[in-house]
């Protein structure tokens, strides 16, 4: 992991030999209503990485985040942040965590500046106006610093919540569905900010519905469904492992059906018979492409262009969830 090299934050000496900044062991949670939100989760988040937690609604993503941050009481199991237990040493763990929750919950009558400064104090840090100024400028909130929050648009309020989470210079940042209902510009700003934070060594854990975001941003991806972690994998490895590749041949002539001589290949017709699509496994010893092209020539099928396409994380995700259901 290249990011591990950036781990030069002061908490390093408190961590055990592993470079996990968040270490979740056997964590389960059943709410008083009897609903089991998490089932025996084991997960290590590495220092300095961007970790994406993917899962459908109600999968347990928010419960997991809320337990680590102290909003929900943990059930069985344990969670350590930078080597400190989140229950026993909650002051040490919470002081280095920043959280941007899913819901837009802000004070209405406070000014932007006051609410962000309030958060810094709440997390035990002495005032540092220069830092608050920097955060507000980074989030394009500087012009609005003296505005009351209720006068801001939804997108601006979301920025305020991010500013609050960054006010105390956390080492670990949780973003719970950060881009739900957010416009393109804010999304772009937010991802730029995430990259900058990562460069500074901040570990970022985000949940998202937008799989392309995880695909674009994350170093590792965890897929959670019905309270269980199905898979945790380096993003590229996951895509390689589960990703099928497709070879798309644009035909000279429309085909009515696949000739019998090619029946042994995993072929289908696309685009009204003008495309031949061959699906193959990238991990296989032989992909069969050479043979297919040879056989196509022998069958007298000509093509004018060819391209390949890899499964997106989204397709992998849908597949995983589907196989879990079966």
């Amino acid at each position, binding site marked *: 992991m290249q990011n591990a090299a950036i781990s030069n934050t002061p908490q390093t000496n408190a961590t055990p030999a592993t470079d996990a900044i968040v270490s979740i062991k056997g964590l389960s949670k059943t709410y008083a209503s009897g609903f089991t939100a998490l089932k025996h989760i084991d997960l290590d988040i590495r220092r300095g990485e961007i970790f994406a937690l993917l899962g459908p609604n109600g999968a347990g993503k928010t419960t997991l985040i809320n337990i680590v941050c102290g909003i929900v009481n943990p059930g069985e199991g344990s969670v350590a942040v930078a080597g400190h237990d989140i229950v026993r040493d909650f002051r040490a763990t*919470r002081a280095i965590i920043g959280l941007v929750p899913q819901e837009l919950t802000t004070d209405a009558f406070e000014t932007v500046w006051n609410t962000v400064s309030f958060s810094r*104090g709440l997390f035990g840090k002495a005032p540092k106006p220069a830092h608050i100024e920097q955060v507000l400028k980074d989030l394009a909130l500087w012009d609005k610093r003296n505005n009351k929050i209720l006068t801001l648009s939804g997108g601006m309020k979301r920025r305020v919540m991010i500013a609050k989470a960054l006010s105390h210079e956390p080492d670990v940042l949780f973003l719970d569905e950060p881009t739900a209902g957010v416009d393109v510009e804010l999304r772009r700003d937010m991802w730029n900010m995430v990259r900058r934070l990562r460069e500074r060594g901040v570990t970022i854990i985000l949940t998202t519905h937008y799989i392309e975001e995880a695909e674009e941003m994350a170093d590792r991806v965890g897929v959670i469904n019905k309270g269980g972690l199905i898979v945790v994998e380096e993003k590229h490895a996951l895509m390689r492992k589960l990703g099928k590749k497709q070879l798309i041949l644009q035909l000279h002539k429309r085909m009515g059906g696949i000739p019998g001589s090619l029946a042994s290949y995993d072929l289908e017709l696309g685009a009204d018979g003008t495309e031949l699509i061959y699906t193959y496994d990238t991990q296989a010893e032989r992909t069969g492409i050479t043979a297919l092209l040879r056989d196509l020539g022998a069958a007298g099928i000509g093509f004018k262009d060819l391209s390949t396409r890899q499964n997106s994380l989204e397709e992998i995700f849908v597949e995983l969830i589907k196989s879990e259901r079966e």
Partner: protein
Amino acid sequence: MTLNFQAIRSIYKFEMARTRRTLMQSVAAPVISTSLYFVVFGSAIGSRITSVEGVSYGAFIIPGLIMLTLLTQSVSNASFGIYFPKFVGTIYEIHSAPVSFIEIVVSYVGAAATKSVIVGLIILATARVFVAYDIAHPLWMVAFLLLTAITFSLFGFIIGIWADNFEKLQVIPLLIITPLTFLGGSFYSIHMLPSVWQKITLANPVVYLISGFRWSFYGLADVNVGISLVAIFGFLILCLIAVSWIFRTGYKLKS
């Protein structure tokens, strides 16, 4: 364990800023309503009552009126202060912050008590406009004022945590606190009651507060001052036990 003093400071400042924003409602309103009591009870009715145990009626009701306001203000300030973040959802930040219940209680209850004491002192000053009075034991007066403000702010804080809608937030102040203060001897000495009621009224905790407070002004008390102090401390301890239980179990705060 080191306390997070920055957090106490932040929450306290935040709550006091809220008071400043709502100055009319939080300070002017209680002052106006208490002035009306002085006009109605002190001047209009009081002019027909010569004196109560040697003190002019107008002066006699001052400690009771201050207590009346102090109790209702403490309960409503503190209950609203913690209920509102719960209601709008901003409580998430308090939960995720490196603070224990000590910081939360000290800052919220401290701010609510500060505000009630300020209102109480303003009323004391306003009363001067209507009647002359003396304060026999000023230090005890301040002590009763502070103790009562803190105790009832703590009680209000508990109500704010217990309440999950606005109706519940209002029901205890309206149905319990206000009747108890009116029947607690704000406007009369309990010696003026029929003897059966003199006994029954001793079950009202507010009687001890008003009696003790009035003693600090005029040296007269319906019940022994020592008993008054014990009663306030007893209620304070009960509230502290309730608060520590709430935070230990996460009652109505954390799932």
